[in-house]
């Protein structure tokens, strides 16, 4: 189980992004984190994945644990190797100037076992389209293909837990649907998944638990089904719920009321 306890993160020693986030991602579940831009979703994933250093960020309080061991102070290389936790960055983190096959090989760099080829075949099994593109430079493939490649690359690290940062970003609805089906399938095969999404509806539908992040805090949590039904979530993240259109003033008052959550 991955648990985040009262996590506070600042960038450049002054810009406070996470102000005490606590959440749990149970083994074998999809935990969905939704929130507006600037809520701290990406920072949260960077912190868990051990990537804060590069972005001049620091954990100043709280802890991140896999099981009972703390991940604080470890960098991404260690976290991937020792805890099988891989972070798939937002915006399709593939290497543009490497071919699809080289991308998969690069992601397997931290491994020394002989099963790399077999795993590559497994990835091609999930994403048959990648097999045809294997000798093409990743920069010349479509957005959907790049995101599939990114997921494939994360599988090459032999993860137990995968953190996805907005996999649907900039993709057509049909492609998004397919991606989410794949994520669901990976989960059914035993992977623990943390999914950060703007596309709240689609994400909550495949998720087990959901968290709403706002201003660096978890303001709402519950089962994904419950969040889908929650009136606040429906109004602010699903774009539905209110019977009649509210005026902007009402919405502002509503936000004020919501803050205690």
């Amino acid at each position, binding site marked *: 189980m991955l648990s985040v306890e009262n996590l506070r993160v600042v960038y450049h020693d002054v810009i406070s992004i996470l102000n005490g986030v606590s959440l749990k991602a149970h083994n074998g579940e999809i935990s969905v984190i939704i929130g507006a831009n600037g809520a701290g979703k990406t920072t949260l994933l960077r912190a868990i*994945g051990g*990537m804060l250093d*590069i*972005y*001049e960020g620091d954990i100043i309080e709280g802890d991140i644990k896999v099981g009972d061991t703390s991940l604080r102070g470890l*960098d*991404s*290389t260690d976290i*991937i*190797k020792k805890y099988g936790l*891989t*972070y*798939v*960055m937002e915006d399709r*983190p*593939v*290497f*543009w*100037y*490497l071919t699809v096959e*080289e*991308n998969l*090989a*690069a*992601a397997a*760099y*931290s491994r020394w076992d002989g099963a790399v080829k077999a795993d590559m075949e497994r990835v091609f099994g999930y994403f048959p389209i990648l097999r045809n593109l294997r000798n093409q*430079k990743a*920069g*010349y493939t479509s957005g959907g293909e790049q995101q599939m490649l990114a997921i494939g*690359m*994360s599988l*090459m*690290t032999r993860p137990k837990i995968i953190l996805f940062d907005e996999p649907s970003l900039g993709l057509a609805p049909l492609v998004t649907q397919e991606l989410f089906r794949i994520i669901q399938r990976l989960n059914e095969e035993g992977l623990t998944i943390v999914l950060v999404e703007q596309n709240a509806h689609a994400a909550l539908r495949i998720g087990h638990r959901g968290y709403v992040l706002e201003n660096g805090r978890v303001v709402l949590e519950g089962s994904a089904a419950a969040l889908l039904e929650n009136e606040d979530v429906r109004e602010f993240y699903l774009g539905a719920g209110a019977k009649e259109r509210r005026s902007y003033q009402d919405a502002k008052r509503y936000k004020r009321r919501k803050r205690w959550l």
Partner: protein
Amino acid sequence: MIDLIQTLGAGLLIGFVYGLLGLGIVIIFRASEAFNFAIGEFLVVGSFLFYIFFFDLHLPFIIALPLGLLASAAVGALVEKLSIKPLLGRSGLSMTIITLGLASVLRALVQLIFGAHSYSFFLDLPDITLEVSTLLFPSERIWAGLLSFIAFGLIIFLLFRTRWGVAIRATSESQPKAMAFGIDARFILLIVWALSAMCIAVAGVMISNFGALSYLTGIAGLRAIPVVLIGGMDSIGGALIGGLIVGLCEALVGSYVEPLGLVGFKDVAPYLLLLIVLFIRPYGLFGTVRIERV
């Protein structure tokens, strides 16, 4: 006609050496986005390290060269660790400026340790002088071209056919992405500097073998500037082509233009050529066409 063939051959042979120098610049530029202006000093340091193993310790060439290269790699790695790593995440320009300072420091160190006089430098490699009628290619020139070519080939093999090569190219493209997939980007950068120092050291030993070795030999390293700018700063194949072009240009100007009374013009000619190339192709002949998505 014989004259022309002689000139072209000589130009190609030295071109491979220049290409190797260019490669040393290119792999660092791709990985750190810094231009290593300390290349001349890397060249001198590498040559002196080899000098110690070969001339002072009297080891055979086949052992002294790898040892000298390893020592050069260690120096390259050390330089990266001390001066470049603290700047990780900053712009390539600050690292480039650092290399300027580094050049002064290394040059002064070499003078302190080895003095400012010249050391005679002669490798007793098998004589493979090529002499056909009036054509003459001296043995040390052929060795220089040959060994540089082999070194270049080894680096290409490493970069494009091995797992480390994939990791190096991935890191060169994006450090955050590489780290997110478990590639230790910091270590890879160290390796890249070590590799670069080795390339430059091979070229350095070959260049020293043409004459003598002193701290001023480093000036030859500046040839790498027109090489990489003509070939394209981020193109590995471009470094080789750029090296050959500069070598040929130098040789042709040396035998056909200088006799007209323009003594020393062959040192300027590559820069004139560079100017023309940059007018036509600002990224250099083989600079990567950036992948752009629309």
